[in-house]
C-alpha cells in the first residue's frame, strides 16, 4: 500500500511539470511581446522595458521558466493587469463562492444520484428503471446555462422564491442564510453530473450482481435487501468513488458557465472575465491552480480506490 502510494505520487510529478510548462508557454503562444501583453494596452515602452528585464524575457526560455517556477513555489503567480493586485488574491477572492458551490453541488449529486441509481439497478428491466435511465440521459443532454436560465425564470422571476443572481459572503450580513443564493446554481451544476452518477451507480451495481460472491450470498439464503445493500451496493460504490475525478473535471468546466449565468463572484466567472479582458496573468494563474487541484483530486481518488479495493494495488 505504501509502495503504491509513493509510486502513484511520483507518477504525478512528470505530468505536473509538463502541464506547468504548457501553462507557462501559453503566454508565449499569444502573438506579440509577452511583456507588452502582460502589461496591457496602456503600458509605456519604459514600463515594458522594465518588465522585460524584471521577468528576464531577454534570457533563454528555460531560464524564464525556472524563474517563473521559483516564483510559483513561493506563492507568486504574478500580477493581474486589470485589478493591479497579485493573482493569488484574485483567486482567493473567488474561492469562498466556488468552494461552497462545489460543496452544495456534491451534496445534490450524492443525495440525488446514488439512491436513484441504486433503485434503478434493483428494479432492473422494469418501467422504473427505464424511466430513470431515460431521464438521467435526458438531464445529461441539457446545456448547463440553459437549465440555469430556466430555473431563474421559474424560481426567481416567476415564483420569487429564490434570488436570481449574486452571492454575498456568509461572513457578511445574513450569515449562513446567504447560502440560499447558491441553491439554484448548485442544482443547475448538479443536474448533468447527478445524471452521470445515476447511470454509473446503476451500471456498476448490475456488474457486481453478476459476481460469484453475490450468488453465494443469495444461495446461502440471505435476505435480498441485505444482499442488495451489503454485497452489491457497497461494492458498486467503489466504482463510483473512482469516477469522482472525472466528475471534478466536469464540475470545474460547468462551474465556469454556471457562475457566469448566476453572476456569482467565483473563480469560474473570473476565468471568463479575464479571458474577455485579456488579463493573461490571471488566466495563467487560475488554470494552473485548477490543473494542480484536478491532479490532486485524481491522486486522492486513486489512493482511495486502492484502499477501498486492495486488489487494485496488486496489479
Amino acid at each position, binding site marked *: 500500500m505504501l509502495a503504491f502510494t509513493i509510486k502513484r505520487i511520483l507518477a504525478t510529478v512528470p505530468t505536473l511539470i509538463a502541464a506547468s510548462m504548457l501553462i507557462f508557454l501559453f503566454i508565449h503562444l499569444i502573438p506579440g511581446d509577452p511583456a507588452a501583453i502582460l502589461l496591457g494596452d496602456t503600458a509605456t515602452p519604459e514600463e515594458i522595458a522594465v518588465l522585460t528585464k524584471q521577468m528576464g524575457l531577454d534570457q533563454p526560455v528555460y531560464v524564464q521558466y525556472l524563474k517563473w517556477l521559483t516564483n510559483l513555489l513561493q506563492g507568486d503567480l504574478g500580477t493581474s493587469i486589470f485589478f493591479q493586485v497579485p493573482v493569488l488574491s484574485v483567486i482567493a477572492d473567488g474561492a469562498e463562492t466556488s468552494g461552497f458551490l462545489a460543496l452544495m453541488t456534491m451534496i445534490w449529486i450524492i443525495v440525488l444520484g446514488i439512491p436513484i441509481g441504486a433503485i434503478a439497478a434493483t428494479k432492473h428491466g422494469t418501467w422504473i428503471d427505464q424511466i430513470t435511465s431515460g431521464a438521467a440521459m435526458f438531464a445529461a*443532454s441539457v446545456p448547463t446555462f*440553459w437549465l440555469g*436560465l430556466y430555473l431563474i425564470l421559474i424560481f426567481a422571476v416567476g415564483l420569487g422564491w429564490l434570488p436570481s443572481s449574486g452571492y454575498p459572503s456568509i461572513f457578511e450580513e445574513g450569515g449562513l442564510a446567504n447560502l440560499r443564493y447558491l441553491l439554484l446554481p448548485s442544482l443547475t451544476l448538479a443536474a448533468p453530473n447527478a445524471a452521470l452518477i445515476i447511470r454509473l451507480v446503476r451500471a456498476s451495481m448490475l456488474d457486481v450482481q453478476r459476481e460469484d460472491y453475490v450468488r453465494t450470498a443469495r444461495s446461502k439464503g440471505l435476505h435480498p435487501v441485505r444482499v442488495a445493500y451489503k454485497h452489491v451496493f457497497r461494492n458498486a460504490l467503489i466504482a463510483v468513488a473512482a469516477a469522482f475525478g472525472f466528475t471534478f473535471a466536469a464540475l470545474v468546466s460547468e462551474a465556469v*458557465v454556471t457562475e457566469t449565468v448566476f453572476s456569482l463572484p467565483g473563480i469560474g466567472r473570473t476565468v471568463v472575465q479575464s479571458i474577455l479582458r485579456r488579463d493573461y496573468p490571471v488566466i495563467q494563474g487560475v*488554470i494552473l491552480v485548477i490543473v494542480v487541484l484536478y491532479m490532486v483530486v485524481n491522486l486522492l481518488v486513486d489512493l482511495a480506490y486502492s484502499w477501498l479495493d486492495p486488489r487494485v494495488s496488486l496489479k
Partner: protein
Amino acid sequence: MMVRETPILETEKTRFLSNLLLPFRGRILASIGLAWLVLMAFFAIFAPWITPYDPLAIEPVARLTEPGATHFFGTDHFGRDTFSRCIYGARMALLIGLGTVFVSLTVGGFIGMVSAYFTRIGSVLMRVVDVLMAFPALLLALVLMTLFERSVINTIIVIGIVYTTTTARILYGMVLKLKNEVFVDAAICSGVGHTSILLRHILPNLISPLLVQASFIFAFAQLQAAALDFLGLGLPPEIPSWGNMLSESRIYVTRASWLLIYPGLLIILSVFSMNLVGDAARDSLDPRFKDDIAGV
C-alpha cells in the same frame, strides 16, 4: 461463376444496411431519436428553402413579437425571425458536430493507433495526451480560444482538440487489445508491412466502436459549442447558432421566454437523440470494446 457472384454482393449490401439499423430494432426511443436527427439534417441541408424569412433580416417594427401565424417561434430583439434562425442553427450544429468528429477521429485516431502499435513512440505521445487530459475539457477549449479569433473553423479545431485526447486514449486501449490477436501475428508472419497491418487488418475491426464514439463526440460537441457561444467565445456573434441565439437573448428572456425555449429545446433534443442513438449502437457492439467507449 459470374451469375452467382452478383446476388451475393447484393445481399452483402442489404445486410450492411440492415446491420446499421439493427441496434434500433425494438428500441422505440432510439428510433425516434434517429428520426429527429434525420429531420435536423434535412433542415440543415435545405435551410434556405424551408425558412420563411432571411435569418439575418432585421425588422425593428416586429421586435420581440410573440410566436404566432406570421412568426412561428416569434422574433428576437432585432425583429429577426426565430424560426428561420433556428433552422439555420441546425446547419451550424451539423457543421460543428461533423467537424469535431472529423478532427478528433483523424488526429486522435492516428495518435492512438500509432502509440499502441509502436510502443516506443507511444510512450512519448501518450504522455502528451495525459498532460492535455489534465485540463478540464471546457477550460482547455476556453484557453485555446483566447489564442484564436472567433470563427467557425477555429471553434471546430478547438473542440476537436479537446476530444482528440479522449479518442486517442480510447483507440490506444483498443489497438493494444487487438495487437496480440492471432490474425495480426499471421499478417506479420506473412510479411505484411506495418502500415498495411494498421490500416487493413486492425482499423477495419475498429470501425463500429469508432462510429459509436463518434456519435457521443457529436453530442458532446454540441454542448461544448453552445457553452462557448454562451460565454461569448465561440462562433462569431453574427452567425445564427443555437448557442449564440441563447447568449444574445439572455437579457430579454423575462419578457420573451420563447427566445429561451426554442433554441434550447433544439439543442436538448438533438443532444438527447444523439446520445440515445449512441447508446443503442453501443449495446450492439463487440463486447471487447464496450467498456472502452466514453459515452453518457
